[in-house]
């Protein structure tokens, strides 16, 4: 083995990751320098945004490369990884804008970008990792900086509670998952997903496969916020600053889907261990529970949290048939892209509201359509898209999801999902009615204007993205079709 | 290895350690007194005013465990110290790493004994010992790495053999200086005597008597002996030397290094825990990293064995 040591250092394959990692390292001293220093505080944010755009460009250049593995079969370089990296990077970029907008003029401007870069890096690694050790490593790299982001405002009571819950649940979920992974190693003697899959497909002991799958699923379900492992999400989303909630609701979730898909498609090919059935059950449970609880919410961030749980349930429909239906992967990718844009749009409006009003109570949104037409419009469009109203991205995405579900003979699940979408309409439209039909309280002082150029940029990118994806779905589908190209 | 041989080697290591520790214990106060140190720290043979504040209500499990754990750490550490190419308790492939690890048991022993004594002053030992551990552990590791890199092995025998021609102290004076400072910290010798300071009634010394006090003295003398012995293996060529037989050279170098460390340490006023941490992280760690870089450069230039 010593003879082949040098051949594994394929640095050319991870230029986007290297850009992010290098920039993150550079930002550590830069953030220390700019912390609390007036206008210098914008420097890290600007650098980080440039870096994310550069990484996007580099990843986009790789799209037509041949699928291959690098670093001695531990890291995949294929269409699946590239598309997920593009999604993660665009999510991180928009979330970064929102965070910068919310913390404009605050100390947190200096170190938030750095944590965000590292978390994105973890997510990108997770979408490519083919080795059990690397999976655990990147999952941890995804969570650690997220703790920092959640507790950006360190004196805030809600943030404190959020970070405590996030930390404990994440650490426990990761430990349980890693314990499951060790059994896969024990059954096959290999840490590589591909060889594990090859060994398990033939003559794996079903009992142990199911047990290991159950343990591993806890870790991934935590990242994807599936019921019953979702309980951290509402608390963390509502405790963290709204812009950070947007990030946490998008990047770890997309990375979780990427990791889970890669794991089951490689290590448990053709439904070994009955994971499709398990995923189907989780999908039904997740969308129903998420929507039912969302009906009772009185705070915007909590409402969006439960809505994002329900959305995760919808995305599970194509995941459950990913191994047999050809279009499943591109449906997942398309819906994740749509989810990313509409969710970030909604959370950035919540962030603006938090910045100017200090609250996210739904009651405080009354009459927003008259006082602040632009944010109100953005929020309304985002909610309509989440609800699945044409011609927005959410509609096209839902159509693809249901179509794939029908192709995969999951008729009952598709019917349940349709019923859920109708149910969800109730609370989404309820918020929109508050925006436009209710009058603001007469004694309420008008909200300060000044959404600022950063907010306008955030709103613009996410809303235009939602519209374009919705009106020209073929654009998105062309890209997400690449997801099918696995190593 | 047969059972008889294991027994023989164990007894050999034990006897060597006890003899060496006794020697250290007699020698150390003289060196320090001649250098004008009044606060003796762990060097003190007896207490100035006899035992003070013995633990009235100790934790029945942790209190007796403290000195035993500390002595075990010293005893395990002595296993890899070579007196000659063949005269060693056991030559482990990862000997130096093993040594770093087992010496940590002394800190654990101090913590157990200090907390378990259940008196205020002894509990203070725990905080101070942990802070001292945190301050020496990284630069000490860096001081080891210089020698390890040059010898290309973790085995104590191999490291000493690599210095047959030239001692590493000549090539890496910076690393040797770093080892002197961090070694004194690891051995709780002046100026790093916080856990045994007079202000907390000499720490665990003040709260123990009988066999426990004896074991404390054995372990604290032993840790200085071992630090000096490891220093002479890492930087002074171990048993290598002309004319005299191997073990004698090793013993001489160990004693000389011990005297050097004590004599140098006596020049400085005792440092507080916070000062130790600042010194370690602001000065010693960068120096250690610089030394590693220097050694890397030297190796690239072809210096060393």
């Amino acid at each position, binding site marked *: 083995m010593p003879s082949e040591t040098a051949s594994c250092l394929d640095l050319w394959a991870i230029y986007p990751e290297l850009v992010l990692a290098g920039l993150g390292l550079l930002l550590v001293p830069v953030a220390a320098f700019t912390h609390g220093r007036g206008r210098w505080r914008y420097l890290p944010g600007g650098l980080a945004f440039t870096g994310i755009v550069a990484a996007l460009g580099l990843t986009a250049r790789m799209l037509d490369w041949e699928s291959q593995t690098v670093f001695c079969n531990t890291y995949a370089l294929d269409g699946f990884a590239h598309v997920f990296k593009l999604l993660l990077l665009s999510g991180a970029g928009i979330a970064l804008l929102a965070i910068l907008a919310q913390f404009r003029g605050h100390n947190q401007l200096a170190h938030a970008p750095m944590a965000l870069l590292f978390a994105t890096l973890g997510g990108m690694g997770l979408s490519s990792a083919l080795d059990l050790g690397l999976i655990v490593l990147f999952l941890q790299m995804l969570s*650690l900086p997220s703790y920092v982001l959640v507790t950006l405002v360190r004196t805030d009571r809600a943030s404190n509670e959020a970070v405590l819950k996030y930390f404990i649940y994440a650490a426990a979920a990761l430990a349980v998952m890693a314990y499951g992974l060790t059994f896969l190693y024990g059954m096959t003697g290999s840490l590589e997903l591909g060889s594990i899959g090859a060994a398990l497909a033939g003559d794996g002991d079903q009992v142990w496969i199911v047990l290991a799958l159950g343990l591993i699923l806890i870790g991934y379900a935590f990242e994807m916020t599936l019921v019953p492992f979702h309980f951290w999400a509402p608390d963390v989303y509502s405790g963290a600053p709204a812009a950070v909630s947007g990030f946490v609701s998008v990047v770890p979730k997309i990375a979780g889907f990427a990791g889970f898909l890669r794991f089951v498609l490689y290590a448990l090919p053709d439904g070994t261990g009955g994971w499709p059935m398990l995923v189907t059950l989780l999908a039904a449970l997740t969308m129903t529970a998420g929507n039912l609880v969302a009906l009772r919410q009185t705070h915007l961030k909590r409402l969006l949290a439960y809505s994002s749980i329900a959305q995760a349930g919808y995305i599970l429909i194509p995941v459950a048939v990913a191994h047999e239906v050809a279009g499943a992967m591109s449906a997942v990718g398309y819906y994740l892209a749509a989810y990313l844009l509409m969710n970030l749009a909604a959370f950035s409006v919540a962030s603006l509201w938090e910045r100017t009003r200090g609250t996210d109570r739904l009651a405080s949104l009354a009459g927003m359509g008259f006082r602040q037409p632009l944010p109100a419009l953005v929020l309304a469009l985002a909610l309509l898209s989440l609800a699945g109203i044409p011609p927005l991205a959410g509609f096209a995405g839902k159509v693809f999801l249901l179509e794939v579900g029908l192709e995969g003979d999951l008729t009952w699940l598709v019917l349940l999902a349709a019923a859920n979408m109708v149910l969800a309409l109730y609370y989404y439209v309820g918020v929109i009615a508050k925006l436009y039909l209710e009058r603001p309280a007469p004694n309420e002082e008008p909200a300060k204007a000044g959404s600022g150029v950063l907010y306008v940029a955030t709103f613009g990118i996410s809303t235009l993205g939602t519209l374009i994806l919705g009106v020209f779905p073929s654009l998105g589908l062309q890209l997400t079709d690449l997801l099918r190209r696995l190593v | 290895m047969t059972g008889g041989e294991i027994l023989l080697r164990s007894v050999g290591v034990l006897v060597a350690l006890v003899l060496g520790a006794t020697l250290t214990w007699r020698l150390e106060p003289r060196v320090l007194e001649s250098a004008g140190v009044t606060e003796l720290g762990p060097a003190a043979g007896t207490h100035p005013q006899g035992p003070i504040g013995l633990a009235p209500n100790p934790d029945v499990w942790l209190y007796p465990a403290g000195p035993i754990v500390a002595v075990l750490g010293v005893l395990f550490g002595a296993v890899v110290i070579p007196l000659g190419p063949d005269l060693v308790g056991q030559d482990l492939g990862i000997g130096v790493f093993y040594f770093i690890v087992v010496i940590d048991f002394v800190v654990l022993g101090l913590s157990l004994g200090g907390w378990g004594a259940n008196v205020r002053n002894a509990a203070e030992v725990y905080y101070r010992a942990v802070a001292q551990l945190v301050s020496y552990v990284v630069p000490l590791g860096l001081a080891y790495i210089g020698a390890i890199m040059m010898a290309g092995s973790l085995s104590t025998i191999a490291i000493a053999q690599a210095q047959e021609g030239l001692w590493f102290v000549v090539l890496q004076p910076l690393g040797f200086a770093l080892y002197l400072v961090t070694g004194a910290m690891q051995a709780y010798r002046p100026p790093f005597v916080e856990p045994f300071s007079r202000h907390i009634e000499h720490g665990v010394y003040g709260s123990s008597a009988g066999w426990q006090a004896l074991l404390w003295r054995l372990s604290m003398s032993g840790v200085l002996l071992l630090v000096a012995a490891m220093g002479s293996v890492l930087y002074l060529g171990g048993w290598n030397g002309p004319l005299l037989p191997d073990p004698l050279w090793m013993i001489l170098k160990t004693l000389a290094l011990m005297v050097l460390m004590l004599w140098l340490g006596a020049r400085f006023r005792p440092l507080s825990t916070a000062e130790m941490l600042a010194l370690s992280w602001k000065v010693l760690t960068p120096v250690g990293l610089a030394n590693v870089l220097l050694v890397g450069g030297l190796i690239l230039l072809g210096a060393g064995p």
Partner: protein
Amino acid sequence: MAVPLTAYLVVAALLFAIGVYAVIAQRSAVMILMGIEVLLNAIGLNLIAFWRFVNPGDYSAQIFAIIIITVGAVEMGIGLAIMLLLYRNRSSVQVDDYAELRG
């Protein structure tokens, strides 16, 4: 090897069970963190036992174990920092005291 693989695995399984118990039953955040460390310990033991008996020629599993140890150490570091922050703000690290976010 006189001791069979199953013996090691059973020890790891029992460690895992104790860790699960500690994570569920304890109410001080630091104690929960310690329970998580026990869980990680069980993972390491499982890995090394499998390595020794299933595939001792390939040392990859030891790298995985090193990653697990790293994860444990990093979690300990950041967990203690989080608890330091909580303690400074609220003088408590009891998880029951952090139950304001509901709904």
